[in-house]
């Protein structure tokens, strides 16, 4: 059986093709303005990658912020359930998930692949990819560099503002006071980690926790989160596609 999961996120659209439960292909591309258009392109690309014809696909399932715009999907599922299914497939012993995406962050408590509790931050950019994107700009850094540079810091600056706009001005004022770039970068990263760790503790994540979403690719955040929570985190080789994988699994179940 062939099923495709599409995760229509605010920043990127992801697709995973499952062939008899095995991941045959995955794609990640920017969402841009039109959720449906991006989903159609992701679908086409993942089919091409796997060398599968559209007519051979049994099911398509959509998840993510734009899930209801994906007209060609058979069913939709929330990204919370999707991440839980996707991560459980990769790590059967997982008990918790931290997902930091472009515009929100979530912590999910799971038991045997089922969601037992969750918390989301989505009203504010604090603790999300957006926060890093803005504040990296204040340091004149590409976002990928922010995490790498932060890892070299020995004395991280303290950033107290949770609000993205205020944190940006705080970073600029630290710059003006002569702080080193890596120390400010580390301060910003720690502030995101702190914010997310509070949520993780509220839900009670303790051991066997996976870190997924676009921001999980940022090594600096992973290290800062591990330090903050005092545990080591599982990060899948492709942390951005666990939602799409979960949707594909949901479809084939």
């Amino acid at each position: 059986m062939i099923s495709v999961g599409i995760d229509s996120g605010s920043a990127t659209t992801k697709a995973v093709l499952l062939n008899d439960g095995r991941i045959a292909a995955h794609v990640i591309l920017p969402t841009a303005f039109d959720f449906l258009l991006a989903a159609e392109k992701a679908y086409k690309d993942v089919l091409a990658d796997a060398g599968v014809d559209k007519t051979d696909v049994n099911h398509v399932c959509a998840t993510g912020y734009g899930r209801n715009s994906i007209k060609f999907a058979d069913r939709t599922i929330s990204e919370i359930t999707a991440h839980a299914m996707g991560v459980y497939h990769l790590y059967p012993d997982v008990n918790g998930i931290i997902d930091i995406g472009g515009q929100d962050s979530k912590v999910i408590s799971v038991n045997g692949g089922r969601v037992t509790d969750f918390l989301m931050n989505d009203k504010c950019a604090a603790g999300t990819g957006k926060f890093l994107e803005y504040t990296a700009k204040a340091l004149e850094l590409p976002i990928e560099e922010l995490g790498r540079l932060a890892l070299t810091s020995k004395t991280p600056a303290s950033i107290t503002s949770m609000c993205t706009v205020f944190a940006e001005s705080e970073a600029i004022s630290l710059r003006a006071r002569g702080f080193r770039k890596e120390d400010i970068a580390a301060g910003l990263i720690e502030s995101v980690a702190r914010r997310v760790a509070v949520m993780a503790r509220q839900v009670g994540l303790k051991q066997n926790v996976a870190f997924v979403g676009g921001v999980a690719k940022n090594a600096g955040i992973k290290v800062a989160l591990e330090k903050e929570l005092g545990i080591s985190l599982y990060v899948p080789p492709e942390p951005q596609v666990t939602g799409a994988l979960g949707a594909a699994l949901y479809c084939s179940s």
Partner: protein
Amino acid sequence: MQRFNSLEYIKNSYNARISQIAEERKTGKKIVGTFCLFVPDEIIFAAGADRIILCGGKNETVSIAEQYLPRNICPLVKSSFGSIVNNGCSGVKSCSHFGMVDMVVAENTCDSKKKMYELLGDYVPTYVIDLPQRPDSPEALKYFLGELYKFKGAMEQLTGNKVTIEQLKKEIESSNETRKLFHKLYGLRKMDPPPISGVDVLKVLQKQYFLSTEELKKSLRMLICEVEQVEVEWAHKPRIMISGCPMAGGNTKIPEIIESKGGVIVAEESCTGTRSFWDLVDEDKDPMLALAERYIKIPCSCMSPNNRRIDNILELAREFKVDGVVYYTLQFCHGYNIERYKVQQALKKAGIPMLAIETDYGDSDLEQIGLRVDAFMEMLS
């Protein structure tokens, strides 16, 4: 879900009620506006006055209120205040009653309301009942009883009528009758699946303190009769209880989302819900004392400690066979927001999942809340 004729009747009752109040005012009858369950209707009616609720659930008047009040207080307080200073809801129909009251009877519950009433006094005569907030101490009951006597005096002064024991007893019986009707309606919701949606029940609850008692009872009897006839097809939907802040008239945001995502609301632990009718007034006691005893036990989050509320939530969850609780709070409602932690701990212990939603009257977070509710429903089924 079933469409009920009686709900249409209730929906269309607004204009008739407004004309009724206008007529009453012409004959010299006084109209009292209230905000809160802690104000005993029985005393108002016994003095020969009529009553309408002034709690605002509409977003449109929030910005009017923000000319006077800080932005970061709860939307219910802002919406209500905005409606009153504006004598209505600025272009919104079904709002003119805000300008029709002779006196507001307020109560000291949360800080935002308490301080808002001080400003409100400049626009409409405002009487405030002081509410002791340690409900289980004997001193509190004594003090509250004294406050109710003072309130009775104020009503007598407003209307020029003496409140007699007989009149009070009659009104207590009448209000108990309404409470029993609500119990009967809620009893029907214990079926699986329930024959009536939570959104429908909420629309009745929101009219509870707006309609005249006679109209309310008539509507409830009609509705119960219709609901009893419903033959429901079996289909299990997650049974949800909403617990938390009031959902004032005009605000059906969260129940609508829950029921559009496949859940069904079977009970509301709310001022627009069980808190309004759960306990009856003892008809065998001295009426003033019986009123004080009944009203002081309303488990509002302004009370401290408020363990009665936790016990009540657990009891309701069992009684209505609830699969999950949606803990609903209005932004900046510190009382209910802080109590969330205790409720969450208690429900966790009882093995009942809970989803917390904090929101206001705006539409900007519909998608985000929809996602949480989707995930919660998936979790429960």
